[in-house]
């Protein structure tokens, strides 16, 4: 049981908890306490110093919107945002209750009456916006991966194709999302016309912008991983006369999994960064739009709320990276490799 938990923590990268678990189960307490101080105490200390500097520094800067918020103010705004979420959810429940009662009454009077179930159209809460952002980045990232991994594999296997694609990759890679966005917006408006759109245009625009920017690290890393496979392994495949497809699935992909995941992790990181900028401009109702709206709003609370968003973005980005890291460790054949 204990070993299982420790194994889990190791896999997910939450190694800081391991001494804690060991301590609880009474394994050499002295050693564990030392480890604990090293692994939790020191980062903790750094965090406290950071908060202190922030607190002191913020107090010294006064802007047109008042003082720059310190940690306390930001914490307050965070709890307000959380409260707003619950209030909004309660309103929604009440709305549906009222609607259900109305409909029930109508049906009681006349069983054939037409009842409408109107959806609740309340304000998006902070958590809705976070979910929108996560969903958008996920869609953009998945599309990017679906395109980048196969192209990476094929071009890693063929020098000709690689030298054909390389200049294109090198040119498109450094393009900023802000440059893509206007093009994507216009193209999406022209191409994506439907009566009853399943997705909003702002969502599509943001997701495609994420795709365009997060394509390249996966593509390049996959190609490099594939082209650096041990020649002998490929030769074993040739001796066995494996088909192209079997070679790809049985030899090429397994041996380049570590590199593919390295690329995917970088891509997801970039995608998340790009998303915020894209949402600001495309007005996709996620965290980027939240920041933009607060900026436009310019009330005394705005700066604090923006900082909540900034921290949220950071923490979520960190968590996304952890998810990828865990997957990388899970899929990698070399469980002992140190992956950071």
């Amino acid at each position, binding site marked *: 049981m204990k070993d299982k938990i420790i194994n889990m923590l190791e896999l997910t990268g939450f190694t800081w908890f391991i001494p804690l678990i060991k301590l609880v189960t009474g394994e050499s307490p002295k050693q564990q306490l030392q480890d604990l101080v090293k692994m939790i105490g020191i980062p903790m200390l750094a965090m406290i110093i950071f908060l202190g500097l922030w607190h002191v520094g913020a107090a010294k800067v006064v802007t047109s919107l008042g003082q720059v918020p310190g940690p306390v103010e930001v914490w307050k705004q965070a709890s307000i945002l959380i409260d707003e979420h619950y209030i909004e959810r309660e309103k929604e429940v009440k709305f549906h209750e009222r609607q259900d009662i109305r409909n029930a009454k109508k049906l009681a009077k006349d069983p054939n009456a037409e009842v409408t179930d109107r959806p609740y159209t309340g304000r998006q809460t902070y958590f809705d916006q976070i979910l929108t952002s996560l969903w958008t980045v996920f869609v953009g990232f998945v599309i990017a991966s679906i395109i980048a991994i196969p192209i990476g594999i094929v071009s890693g296997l063929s020098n000709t194709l690689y030298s054909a694609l390389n200049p294109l990759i090198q040119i498109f890679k450094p393009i900023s999302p802000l440059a893509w966005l206007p093009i994507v917006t216009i193209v999406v408006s022209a191409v994506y016309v439907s009566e009853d759109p399943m997705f909003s245009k702002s969502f599509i625009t943001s997701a495609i912008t994420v795709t365009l920017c997060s394509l390249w690290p996966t593509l390049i890393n996959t190609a490099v991983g594939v082209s650096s496979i041990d020649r*002998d392994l490929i*030769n074993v495949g*040739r*001796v*066995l006369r494996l088909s192209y497809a079997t070679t790809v699935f049985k030899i090429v992909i397994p*041996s380049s999994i570590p590199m593919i995941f390295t690329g995917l992790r970088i891509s997801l990181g970039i995608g998340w960064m790009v998303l915020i900028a894209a949402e600001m401009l495309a007005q996709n109702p996620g965290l980027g739009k939240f920041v933009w709206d607060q900026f436009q709003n310019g009330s005394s609370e705005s700066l604090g709320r923006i900082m909540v968003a900034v921290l949220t973005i950071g923490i979520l980005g960190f968590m996304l990276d952890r998810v990828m890291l865990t997957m990388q460790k899970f899929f990698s*054949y070399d469980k002992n490799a140190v992956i950071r």
Partner: protein
Amino acid sequence: MESYLNIDHVSIEFPTANGPFKALDSVNLKIDKGEFVSIIGHSGCGKSTVMNIVGGLYQATEGGVILQGKEVNEPGPDRAIVFQNHSLFPWLTAYENVEIAVKSVFKGKKSKLEMKDWIEHNIELVHMSHAKDKLPAELSGGMKQRIGIARALAMEPKVLLMDEPFGALDALTRAHLQDSLMEIQADLNNTVMMITHDVDEAVLLSDKIVMMTNGPAATIGEVLDVKLERPRHRLQLANDVQYNHYRSEVIHFLHERHARKVA
């Protein structure tokens, strides 16, 4: 009479930045069925190149390789290769490494159960049954090489090609593997072409030792028939006159007549 494997006037040129580089010049060698042939020569003379041509991984510029009356110029499981550094798939267990070969070679020819028996039989041949479910990273160098040999044997090749199969191993492990190989060879009587750097290994294992001249444009300098009784035992042979005679022949060839030019 036509020989089993005929390396017929094979030459090869590699294109390089400074024009073509002729690595082999008219290599001519006939090998009979069931013969164990070692190729010995200085580093860089072209031993691996010969083997890669027989294995079909390289194409000869001139001449060709004829196996049982048919020219071969493509790799195939009838010429299984044991590589110097094992070349096991690191994400597959020992068993699965043999399995991938058996499945692709005997697809449609053996039933599932027969395949399983065949895989296990070959792992047993190299004395690795106890570790068949381990990943290569969990095996020692010698064990990995044993599995590499099992994988090649499991293809039931017409010719078994081995490129310095024991080169990366320490002397004791190497001796163990040589003994295992002799045992297997006594059993199966395969046709084997083995590259080696080790004079003792060559004399101990071979029916024929092929000595190559130095490159560029290397070719076969001399062929030595080793007519020692089998089974051979390294302890008995240590003081055997005949054995030491063969040994000194090879050493003389390598270090007198074809001493490596000081680089």
